[in-house]
């Protein structure tokens, strides 16, 4: 067979494979260099993300369909049980809301602060998780909201439970969220009980955080709640982040080894919310937007 595509004629090979590889390798290295050194490729990425979106949607659809089917065919008993639990929860929340209204009034009177009545969050935007990448190197969500919906880079993302992460790469209709458990992510937190501030770093294990910067004698115990401290310009203060799971104090190290579990269920959330906060509110993060780049560790 004298088929040009599969011919094994040694003499007429066109460009030798070695030369081709050399060319491609140079191209790959150049791409990496440009991508690392400058923002030129960001617009390309933006466009490519738009192309990848339908594929991500399609690939996530079996899981979504399965979830939908399961929810649709849930047993009546389960639903009743859930209903009862939800009613109880609503009562509880109503009580809390009453108490909160009272507290807010008291707060307003005490501080005589015009803005205190309003919550720090000005606007929400819920987003569905359409793809997730949960592994030791990366803990990321892709959600179905992007620049077209007003999402911006570095925007805080929460879920019903607590802090989830921040928008890392924003595409036109989708964006990638770096979770607080991502090994490249750090969130400034405060121990709710004592007020001590520190950083919570991601570990790469779903929902697990590490607090490596606390001295041995720090007053911290299992079960302590960590909330955002509002420093660093990304996250507003006071949102629950994690609860301390274990504290180890080794004589050999000057630092306590503290592990925490995120309040938000980072491997299970299907719906998250982007947050816009009032810049003038006391709980708003200081120096918003300027520190957006620095929060994700290089």
């Amino acid at each position: 067979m004298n088929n040009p595509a599969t011919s094994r004629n040694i003499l007429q090979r066109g460009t030798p494979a070695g030369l081709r590889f050399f060319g491609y390798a140079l191209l790959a290295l150049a791409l990496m260099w440009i991508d690392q050194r400058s923002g030129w490729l960001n617009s390309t990425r933006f466009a490519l993300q738009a192309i990848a979106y339908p594929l991500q949607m399609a690939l996530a659809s079996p899981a979504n369909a399965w979830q939908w089917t399961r929810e649709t065919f849930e047993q009546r008993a389960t639903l009743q049980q859930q209903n009862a639990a939800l009613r109880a929860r609503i009562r509880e929340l109503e009580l809390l809301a009453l108490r909160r209204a009272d507290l807010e009034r008291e707060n307003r009177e005490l501080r005589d602060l015009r803005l205190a009545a309003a919550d720090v969050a000005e606007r929400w935007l819920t987003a569905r998780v359409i793809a997730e990448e949960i592994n030791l190197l990366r803990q990321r969500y892709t959600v179905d909201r992007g620049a077209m919906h007003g999402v911006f880079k570095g925007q805080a993302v929460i879920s019903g439970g607590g802090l989830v992460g921040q928008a890392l790469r924003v595409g036109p209709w989708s964006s990638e969220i770096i979770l607080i458990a991502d090994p490249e992510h750090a969130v400034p937190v405060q121990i709710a009980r004592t007020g001590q501030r520190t950083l919570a770093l991601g570990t790469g294990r779903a929902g697990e955080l590490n607090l490596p910067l606390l001295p041995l004698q720090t007053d911290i115990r299992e079960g302590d709640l960590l909330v955002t401290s509002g420093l660093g310009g990304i996250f507003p203060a006071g949102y629950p982040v994690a609860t301390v799971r274990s504290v180890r104090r080794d004589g050999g190290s000057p630092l306590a080894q503290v592990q925490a579990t995120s309040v938000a269920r980072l491997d299970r959330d299907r719906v998250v919310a982007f947050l816009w906060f009032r810049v003038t509110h006391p709980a708003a993060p200081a120096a918003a937007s300027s520190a957006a780049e620095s929060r994700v560790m290089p």
Partner: protein
Amino acid sequence: MIAASMRRRLLLSTLIAFVLQVVPLPVWVAAARPPFAVLVVLFWSLIAPRIGGVGLGFAVGLALDVYRGVVFGQHALALGFVAYVAIRQHLIIRNKPMFEQTVFVALLLLACEAITWAIDGFTGNTTGGWLRWLPVLTGPLLWPLTASWQAAENRARR
């Protein structure tokens, strides 16, 4: 034409492998997920180096870079390299017994992962623990399954 139908099969199998490579799986399954994209590039580099070639590896790698949002060119370089080595040795390797082929595949998977690992390190990204290397072990386990497919493609070429 033979080449045209082979090209169709190449595109189809590459697409399927890419989907298998990126489809969301539970965490523990995903950690051991065989590197389908590298395997398919290797397969076509050995069976029909003139159709896919180094360009196939580069293209699949670039697609992976885009999909995962890592630095552009990382997987492209690694897969291009794997394709190049496979193409250089294809006449020897594809006539070897299955065991030797599998060893060759395992070595190339290791090289591929080592390149992405090194680039992760150079670009200041997390390089991960030992779990990262698990696909290098699970990938070669799949290779003997391609025996009949290889035979079919070889028949088609003759």
